[in-house]
């Protein structure tokens, strides 16, 4: 089976500064892969390339085996890629209700009103927000907004969900609760997920596979055990030796 998302030898520069250098990465169908790396290593740029907001200077981006961007050209626009995204700031549309936020993408994809309502209510029920359907994002708590964001992404039944550090601004207790919810809903739907984070605990809690990005290069990809048993770089070694990782092991 072809990978859901694939980057082949992707290179990107901003002016003279290299952002990504010969990056190759594959996310299998139904897999949850965390792209882990320090700030500024190019993680979010990878998401923007996959979403189609920019094109690689060299190399190609494929979705389900189909080339959607290559060598400086976006061949398939973002709106045709059937992806969903959850940004760090969540980017809920403040002028639309919770229901409106979920309905927007379904309307764009010409889903009938009856099916739309069914899917929205089912999804809101799943994330525990059925009674908040008529509320605006400004009337919700931080945790509820996170739930709306994940529901808005999943209600589209996309070919893959891309998540750009959605829990970066969340306190520890809430983060734990939301990670559990994310894991449950992503696994029960078998949604291919590329989760971007710099936090090892999030990667551990969610993913089947971790890819470590360092200064625009993929230094290692594998399971947690692979990373622990044979760290491919001093950065990965440091990550595994970090207090956070030791805490996770203890837990």
């Amino acid at each position, binding site marked *: 089976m072809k990978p859901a998302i694939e980057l082949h030898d992707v290179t990107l520069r901003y002016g003279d500064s290299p952002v990504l250098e010969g990056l190759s990465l594959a996310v299998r169908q139904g897999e949850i892969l965390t792209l882990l790396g320090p700030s500024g290593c190019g993680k979010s740029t990878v998401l923007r390339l996959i*979403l*189609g*907001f920019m094109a690689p200077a060299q190399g190609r981006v494929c979705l389900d085996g189909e080339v959607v961007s290559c060598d400086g050209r976006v061949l398939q*626009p*973002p*709106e*045709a*890629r*059937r*992806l*969903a*995204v959850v*940004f760090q*700031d969540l*980017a809920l*549309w*403040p*002028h639309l209700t919770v229901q409106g936020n979920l309905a*927007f*993408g379904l*309307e*764009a*994809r010409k889903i009938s009103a009856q099916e739309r309502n069914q899917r929205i209510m089912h999804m809101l029920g799943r994330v525990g927000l059925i009674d908040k359907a008529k509320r*605006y994002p*400004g*009337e919700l708590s931080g945790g509820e907004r996170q739930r709306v964001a994940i529901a*808005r992404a999943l209600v*589209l039944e996309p070919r893959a969900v*891309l998540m750009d550090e959605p829990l970066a601004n969340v306190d520890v207790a809430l983060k734990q609760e939301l990670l559990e919810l994310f894991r449950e809903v992503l696994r029960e739907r078998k949604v291919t997920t590329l989760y971007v984070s710099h936090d090892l605990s999030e990667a551990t809690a969610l993913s089947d596979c971790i890819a470590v990005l360092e200064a625009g290069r993929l230094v290692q990809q594998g399971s947690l055990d692979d990373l622990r048993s044979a760290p491919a770089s001093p950065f990965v070694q440091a990550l595994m030796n970090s207090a956070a990782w030791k805490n996770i092991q203890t837990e």
Partner: protein
Amino acid sequence: MAWPDGGPERRYWTALTVLAFVAPAVLLGIGLIALWNRPATAFVYGGVGMIVVGYIGRYAVVGLRTLTIIIAQSSPHLEESAAAAGAGYLRWLTRIVAPLHWRGVLVAWLLALVFCLRDFETAVLFYPPGGEPLTVRIFTLEANGPEAVVAALAVVQTAVTAGALAIGGVLLRRRSTP
């Protein structure tokens, strides 16, 4: 951003609209006459539509730049989420940008309107017979018309501008969603 960047051609359009605004109105007027005073476009050139074309050409930059700055202040992720959700340009514009930035649209429109209402120099070159704007009417009457009429028209001119701004002000004070 997905669509708002638009590509390099956007820079040329911006430069062109800035040029139309800063160039002497006479220059723009002569250019518009040369372009529109032809048999094929006589239906536009001979009517009030030509004044609208002139105003858009000269003052589009005021509204567009205002709107661009206002939109640029909001998170690009709002637009990018819409694109990723499958929304085309028109849906993005009507369902996300317009409702989200309606105040900005209104302010941009009001600014451009004020410029149009006080314009004299653009329209004076090609206003149609009997279709002159108020500013041109005031100017021509000033030379040999009754002072009282000129004064009254000046009051009307000011009142129309103030009225438009007042309505705009009321609309801008309307409460937004939470």
